[in-house]
């Protein structure tokens, strides 16, 4: 089964199978040494840039700002959900999210 992943409306949200799943304005704690100098970045999501998958994990790259140090930048790949039995299930984004820099391209159908 193919899962349709898209970034829409000027990067405002992530669409999974034509449903809005993750939106800008969320605040994420990131383990992302490459993003800023903070031990953990505390980042406002301002724009989604790309989406992709790693196995069953749905990941995104976003533009955001660390509200501790003020760094504004683009992130590596951040896990936001998993595909379980064909359905999107949120990853708890209140916890620390680990960022990786390499990722296979998004698999989407349109």
């Amino acid at each position, binding site marked *: 089964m193919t899962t349709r992943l898209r970034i*829409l409306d000027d990067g405002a949200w992530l669409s999974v199978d*034509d449903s809005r799943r993750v939106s800008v304005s969320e605040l994420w704690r990131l383990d992302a040494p490459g993003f800023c100098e903070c031990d953990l970045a505390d980042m406002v999501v*301002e724009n989604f840039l790309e989406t992709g998958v790693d196995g069953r994990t749905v990941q995104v790259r976003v533009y955001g700002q660390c509200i501790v140090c003020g760094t504004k930048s683009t992130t590596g790949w951040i896990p936001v959900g998993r595909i379980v039995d064909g359905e999107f299930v949120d990853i708890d984004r209140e916890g620390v999210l680990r960022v990786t820099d390499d990722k296979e391209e998004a698999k989407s159908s349109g």
Partner: protein
Amino acid sequence: MPTDVENWKSEVYGNEIREHLFRFAEEGFETIPDDERDAWFERFKWWGLYHQRNGQEGYFMMRIGTPNGVLEPGQLRVVGEIADEYARGPGTNPIFGDAYADYTTRQAIQLHWIELSDVPDIFEKMEKHGLTTQQACGDSWRNIVGNPVAGKDGQEVIDAWPVIRDLNETFKGDEDHSNLPRKWKVSVTGSADGSGQGDINDLAFEPAYKEIEGEDVVGFNVRVGGGLARNEPRFARDIDVWVSPDRVSDVAGGLSALFRDNGDREDRYNARIKFLVDEWGAEEVRETLQDEYVDFELHTAGRDVREEYTYNTGEGERNDLVGVHEQRDGKYFVGLNVLVGRMGADDVLELADLAEEYGSGEVRLSQRQNVIVTDVPESELDDFLEEDLLEHYSPEPSPFMRGSIACTGTEFCSLSIVETKNRQVRFARWLKENVDLPEDVEEFHIHLSGCTASCAQPQIADVSLRGMKTRKDGEAVEALDVGLGGGLGDEPQFARWVTQRVPVDEVPGALANLIDSFAEAREAGESFRAFVARHDDEELDEFVDPEETDYEDPMMHNTKMTWYPYAEDDSMDAKPPAPADD
């Protein structure tokens, strides 16, 4: 590789979307196939329908494009009646109530909570009265803006209204220009005040004189590639072209076609023509236009009147069109302040009555979200100004009411990070009660935008506020970045972002302290914009001194995570079902 959006557009786009829209309206929202929703919602934009944000599934924002902000006699009443009958949803706004219309920064009108099943009836009613939502959103020619009092303004160099009407009639529904790489915003201004705000549009025609065969002829200089969105603000670039009024359509169509053929269709973030102008430079844009898109010799630029611009410049006369102004024909236009551009449906209908009673029935909209009643004879002026409605929509408002602009915000918009309109109302009311500007400062523009899309044009205000987040006492709260000193004019300037992430409840205090510093440290007669210009960012950051006051903000939490921020139970779990097709 083309984007999904480009693929959808290549399958169905433009005028033909209407028949599908009507089919879904008749058969019901639920009949839009699950795996086609993203595609159809993208396409519906072309007909002015924008799916509201997460939690409000099945409800739409409807944008009505009113070229140059002109509402002909009778049209405002139609807008009021549609708002009253159809723009009611499950959420009640604590300030504005159940049904209202929003006047936008591009002289259009937005209604909310529109149900798909009502669209055919709404279209029928609008079209019967010459109104349309066609191309109000989507990747095509958007509502054309300009000086709203074109044809009536005493400061006019040339009447731009016939030019705008012609462009609107030519390019609305024109299949050759209906599928562009991205939106296409055009401004045509004929007045010497700069009120068309051409500098922030994709394509701008500005009044200019050119000597043709020994005679000074009035026409337009052309600028291309302005825009504010996505942290990439640009002022439109001068491409060294003057055009006579009868050739405007040829040059505008040529540039639209140049954009259609050369804009980036593989990356929507890079698609606006401002990026093409960055890449090519103004000279190459001109050469390509001349060589491939027009069949006559272009003139070089003429003598402009930019030195006379006052609109939204932060100093001088007529920074907006609020107040009583004499028209060319001896009658008057009266600019009324509509705080954050939102007007209750009852008030819209009452204003339509007053416009008929005292004027010609015509009403016009400005880019500062205000409304202008035109054609009021001098003999009727005093009685009009005594009307109760004008106590609320005043032609002589407090500078803080007058200068406030706000975008839609998290109430309805997917992009926004914070609540905006109601917040800006609360800010303006608090500032009016608690802060005094120096006596000679009559205007002070504060623009609040919920995100970097910049629909409230934050970069061209005295004070720019932009949605952000921060933590306060460990809790995530809505916050605003503060920018200062932006404005248009002969030498336009974007605001400098000097203070970041001020918790929203400390913003009024920050502005009070900033204005106190300005009052104390300004030179005699100095404008706020000039004051900002002679200080560095660090000094300005010191002036913006965030502080808690007696201002209380009831929307500190993440309003985006609610289904509707003002609902008693605002959690996503309490969101209403998509409306049934009754």
